[in-house]
């Protein structure tokens, strides 16, 4: 190994680095817009008669996927929706049996989930937890929810990694497997949850200590490095959603 320059300040880069960029923030939706669109889609679609709004939501999901360059999702979304729609509406015509009918009802439910899921996927992919938290704060959501919510979003990936490690450990001790899970469910739950809780809570201790010391949840009203602001993208998205909703209402009354 070569010797290291002991002064981190004297790096090879330009002495005065520019103020950190906002990498995605400009081009993507403000988190508040994204959440409102998601909620609007979710509420209308999951309500009685919500199927009518499925095509509109799919179009929104498709446009969002294209806007972020997620072409695989842009392709997969209509495919999944088409498949679910086929099982819902075409299969019962082909096979006349109540069991198929049951599947059709489930597929109908899946179709709604796919439509909402397309929008949810965009939100999850483009909005980092800190931005979401800052936006919720700006929307005057009480701090109990924003602070605990931020901690939750931060900690879920950590626990998922812990869970994978515990699963590995179980496999090495011969405790894993779906068969064992179904034969001794309670025992399996114990083998899985005890190490998961023990190791996660230990990791949580460092996280919460550090967060508390850095003022998370304190009395002071927090500020944001980049306060969320609505931009052109939000206006465009808002108009498109309005248009699609209006089109849906017209289409529905025309039938």
């Amino acid at each position, binding site marked *: *190994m070569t010797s290291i320059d002991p002064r*981190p*300040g*004297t790096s090879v*880069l330009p002495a005065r680095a520019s103020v*950190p960029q906002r990498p995605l923030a400009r081009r993507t939706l403000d988190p508040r817009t994204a959440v409102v669109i998601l909620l609007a889609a979710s509420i209308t679609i999951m309500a009685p008669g919500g199927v009518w709004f499925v095509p509109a939501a799919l179009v929104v999901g498709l446009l969002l996927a294209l806007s972020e360059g997620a072409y695989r999702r842009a392709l997969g979304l209509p495919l999944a929706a088409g498949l679910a729609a086929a099982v819902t509406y075409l299969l019962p015509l082909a096979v006349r049996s109540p069991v198929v009918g049951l599947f059709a009802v489930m597929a109908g439910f899946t179709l709604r989930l796919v439509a909402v899921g397309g929008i949810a996927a965009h939100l999850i992919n483009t909005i980092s937890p800190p931005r979401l938290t800052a936006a919720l704060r700006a929307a005057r959501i009480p701090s109990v929810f924003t602070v605990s919510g931020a901690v939750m979003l931060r900690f879920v990936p950590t626990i998922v990694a812990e869970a994978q490690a515990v699963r590995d450990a179980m496999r090495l001790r011969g405790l894993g497997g779906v068969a064992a899970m179904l034969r001794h469910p309670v025992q399996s739950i114990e083998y899985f949850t005890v190490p998961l809780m023990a190791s996660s809570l230990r990791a949580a201790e*460092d996280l919460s200590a*550090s967060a508390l*010391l850095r003022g998370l949840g304190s009395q002071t009203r927090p500020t944001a*490095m980049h306060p969320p602001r609505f931009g052109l993208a939000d206006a465009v998205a808002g108009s498109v959603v309005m248009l699609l909703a209006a089109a849906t209402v017209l289409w529905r009354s025309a039938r």
Partner: protein
Amino acid sequence: MILLKDVRWSYQESGTPAVDGLDLHVRRGETVVLCGPSGSGKSSALRLMNGLIPHFHDGKLDGEVRVVGEPVTELAQVGRVTGTVLQHPRRQFFTDAVDTELAFALENFGTPSQQIRDRVGEVVADFGLSELSGRLRELSGGQQQRVACAAAVTHEPPLVLLDEPTANLSPQGIADLTGILRHLKELGATLVIAEHRLHYLRTVADRIVVLHSGRAEREWTSAEFPGLTDEILRREGLRSLNAPERTGAPPISAHGPSVAPGENPAEGGVGVAGGKAAGGAADTPSAEGSGVALRGLRCVMRGRTILDIAEAHLPSGAITAVTGPNGVGKTTLARVLAGLQRHSGRVLLDGRPLHRSRRQRETAIVMQDVQRQLFTDSVRSELRLGAVPEQAERAATVLDELGLDGLGDRHPLALSGGQQQRLVVAAARLSGRRVVIFDEPSSGVDRRHLRSMTRTMREVAEGGAVVVLISHDADLLELAADRELRLRPAC
């Protein structure tokens, strides 16, 4: 700056006091190192200074604590005047990017937006962070610790506290950290560092305070450092004041894109073969048949080749160290050996190809966080779980050998970290595992434990197992490694 006066503290869950009559005065601008064997109370002393004791941990506190002239009443208040860096930078990060992490404290303290942006830009330039554009978790340990240090001082606290900051760092990362500490010192910060490793602090520290059972037992000023022999430090249970000299273990026979070419100084029996073409390495003296052999091993995740080893042989009866920078596939290799990871190519044990599911039954991993692999409610039943019946009666002997005698009825999670590691090793032995992998076993371990850990690994190897050690810790590698497989990025 800091005043501790006759402080006593015991954690709620334990009866014995962790800090017992501690007196300590840290002056402005001073750099003080707190050291001592595991359990001597150095971490607790640090927690007294940043208020985590008593405002985060539950227990009983007596005595007087003053930080920057005032008693500690609230965490956020003391947080404004202190910056804290912990062992695992990854665990303490709250966000996933450098700039948001630096801004975190300032945002919570209500600093105006423009001021946050200016200050973050300043710190990024000052700490040379602008090249670290990726996600925090993908950085090397040293880079992560650099970000953690920067994040601890963005709100310009006069006092910086570091709790074993090198526990998970490679020699390279430690050198990096030394530079940062020196820089902080130049900026006029007061530093308090709880640490086992002393060598890198030799040029930074103004004072070393040795703690024993929660009390300051001895104190050395920088003028006295040259007189500190290894002998004196050993008596105090401390690691050496001189940087460990890695002579490097002879490389195993291996080649492939992931294998770093052997560049070890010609030494011992390796000299002749060491100079061969790229990847050319010494031939193993042991028979090619015994141990683990890898043939055409490739691991691709999300289109990226993580690991690519054309051929390698890990001998049985020896400790083979797997080294290399972060993200180079050390953990992936461990998971391949254990049959937990899909791959192409073959893995042979004693000359016989073994399928993945078979390897799961032949391998044990002692994980970095051992709590992940303790499943039952007593040491005894932990050993019974998955043990070979005919070996089960050896349980008592194995416990005895690993210094766990008399603990049979204790709950595994209530044991100390070292004891938990040895319990996992005991279970691996009783179930007759042929391959035992230790993943970073020495993070935050003092000299005494380093030796006992080496002894444990040695015994497992002497039992005929293939022992694989994944570690950054130069001290441990020097003590334990018989052979070395150094990895490099596959592409």
